[in-house]
């Protein structure tokens, strides 16, 4: 099946989800973007340029690693990991950003804006803007600015202007709103680099297309390394772009089960989580330009969300997944904050891998299920980002005493130097 074939339905709709719900003032801008995207998608040289750029700049193709120690320890399925953490800037975000950068050149726009939660997408966008020579503004919730200083540091040093958003919950969704407000003003010379497969059409399709490089590579690599396709593929789901990326490689393979792992936060019934599909708390709504499942109240106002991984801490899920969930094509599970910390420690100790907290959610679900599978079965996890550069967040999550005393010492030193 081709989820992006709209000939039988409405353009930009996946079942009843998706669409374009934007102020009229953006109608022409989104049309222009759609036309440009269709041209790029139809042009084989565009895709070739994109792949070449990622090969030369970001180290693609990223490898697939067999986790022999972890597989043996769990005593079930053989675990393989797609290493998108090895990309430049440390996550899959660079794929989408480089693609949209090339598209932005075709649009003839010289300014880019982007929202960011954890800072990964902002970091990747600032990197791309530096390389392409675009003026770059990153909108980031004030709460996230305060807790993600290292990424803010890099964005600013890469030449981007980082704007702390003080509205609402001061997190990712508020940064998205602020991007919309910038865009309705500056659309003539500005492209909005949306970071995930959410928002109005064509963003879900466009971001999924750029991220499909993960699945294309992974399918070929699995065939080459294991001689067959995996039985299950796991990916974490915030907005859902890395999961869309890897799942597209296997979506037409009937015997491959696709599993998305959402931010379970403090667990079922806590109302402190980011699970739109794995838990029953989300309902269908329209916000931020599209229709999907949102964590909202009965009047349609958004609820507070939570996850130990800032990159999963978001109210909505991409409309393609809302549809694939209805269709039973993708199964959704949640990983709680506590489970994530345990899985991270286990992965570090047994394999020497440091997945980002976001990606660790996929590990949690895979680690739970691997022991229930046969030893000759194969599972593939998308390690969408690496954790070593998020040392502040991870040290916090692991409540590391030695790290804390190091930071106290650093703070004392800065204070002394100031006085």
């Amino acid at each position, binding site marked *: 099946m081709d989820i992006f074939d709209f000939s039988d339905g409405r353009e930009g709709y996946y079942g009843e989800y998706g669409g374009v719900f934007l102020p009229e003032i953006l*109608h*022409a801008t989104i049309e222009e973007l759609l036309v440009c995207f269709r041209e790029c998608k139809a042009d084989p040289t565009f895709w070739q340029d994109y792949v070449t750029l990622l090969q030369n700049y970001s180290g693609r193709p990223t490898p697939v690693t067999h986790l022999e120690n972890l597989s043996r320890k769990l005593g079930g399925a053989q675990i393989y990991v797609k290493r998108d953490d090895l990309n430049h800037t440390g996550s899959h975000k660079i794929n989408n950003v480089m693609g949209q950068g090339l598209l932005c050149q075709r649009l003839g726009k010289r300014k880019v804006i982007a929202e960011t939660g954890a800072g990964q997408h902002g970091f990747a966008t600032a990197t791309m803007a530096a390389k392409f020579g675009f003026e770059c503004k990153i909108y980031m919730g004030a709460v996230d600015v305060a807790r993600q200083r290292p990424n803010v540091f890099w964005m600013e040093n890469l030449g981007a202007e980082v704007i702390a958003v003080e*509205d609402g919950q001061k997190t990712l969704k508020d940064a998205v*709103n602020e991007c919309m407000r910038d865009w309705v003003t500056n659309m003539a010379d500005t492209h909005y680099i949306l970071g995930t497969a959410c928002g109005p059409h064509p963003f879900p399709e466009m971001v999924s297309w750029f991220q499909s490089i993960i699945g294309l590579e992974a399918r070929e690599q699995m065939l080459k390394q294991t001689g067959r396709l995996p039985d299950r593929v796991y990916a974490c789901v915030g907005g859902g772009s890395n999961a869309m990326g890897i799942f597209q490689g296997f979506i037409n393979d009937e015997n491959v089960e696709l599993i998305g792992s959402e931010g379970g936060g403090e667990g079922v019934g806590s109302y402190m989580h980011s699970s739109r599909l794995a838990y029953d708390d989300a*309902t269908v709504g329209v*916000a931020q330009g599209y229709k999907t499942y949102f964590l909202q109240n009965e*009047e*349609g106002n*958004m609820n507070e969300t939570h996850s130990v991984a800032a990159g999963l801490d978001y109210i909505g899920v991409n409309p393609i997944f809302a549809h694939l969930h209805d269709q039973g094509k993708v199964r959704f599970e949640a990983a709680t904050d506590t489970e994530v910390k345990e899985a991270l420690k286990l992965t570090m100790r047994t394999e020497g891998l440091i997945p980002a907290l976001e990606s660790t959610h996929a590990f949690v679900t895979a680690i739970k299920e691997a022991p229930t599978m046969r030893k000759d079965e194969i599972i593939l996890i998308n390690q969408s980002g690496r954790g070593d550069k998020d040392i502040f967040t991870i040290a916090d999550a692991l409540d590391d005493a030695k790290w804390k005393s190091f930071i106290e010492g650093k703070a004392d030193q800065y204070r002394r130097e100031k006085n």
Partner: protein
Amino acid sequence: MGLQSFIAERKQSKDILVMAHVVCGYPSFEENMQELEIMAEAGVDLVELQFPFSEPSADGPLFVHANEESLKAGTTVDQCFDFMRQVSGRFPFKVLMMGYYNTAFKMGEATFVRRVKEAGGVGYILPDLPIEESANLHRLSAQADIEPIILMTPTSSDKRLAQLGSVSRGMVYVVARKGVTGSKTNMGDDVLALIERCRQHTDVPMGVGFGISSKSDLDFLRGSADIAIVGTAALKTWQQSGASGLRKFFAELMA
């Protein structure tokens, strides 16, 4: 009386009408009522009652804050409709619901139309609902005799204006400039040209909004627009100088 005939009637004695705006429950319903009394005294013709939403992405900073504070204070959709009923029963101006589509979507489009009608509203403005998504809502509204207000903008092509014009009823909201609510618009020839361009595609009355804050803006629009839409400037005045300030603001605006 429907919106369009109400506007026509009022226009017999005035050359430009005024539409004002309050965010329900901000600073409080009591203060909303005081603001509306002042607006009615001044002779305001139409009022938008904004139902607060958690993601008001088409609004500028002042209204964003107002939406947020209102929700924090516990404002509900029920309260907004109750308030709308009181307001439409009490004042001579006509009342429109303004808000975001999710508010209507969550209660169901049929329920939304029925509740606006029952509360005495003559129409609604949902800035994030494009006409491509409005067919059912427009049909229900026509049956109930309330008006969906279409927005026309400076970035709309003639082809787009023709599409928008073909489904416009009651009045059209002409967005005077790019951007969100609340910043100043330089009233110039481009605004007049935009209104002229919009007129070619619809016969319904034309309200102009975004950045209108003074008598000189009104004077500029006189003879060109039918309705001047004033939002942020009034709320700013209320915050800075309360009832006396707002009274003076509307007296000067509409002098």
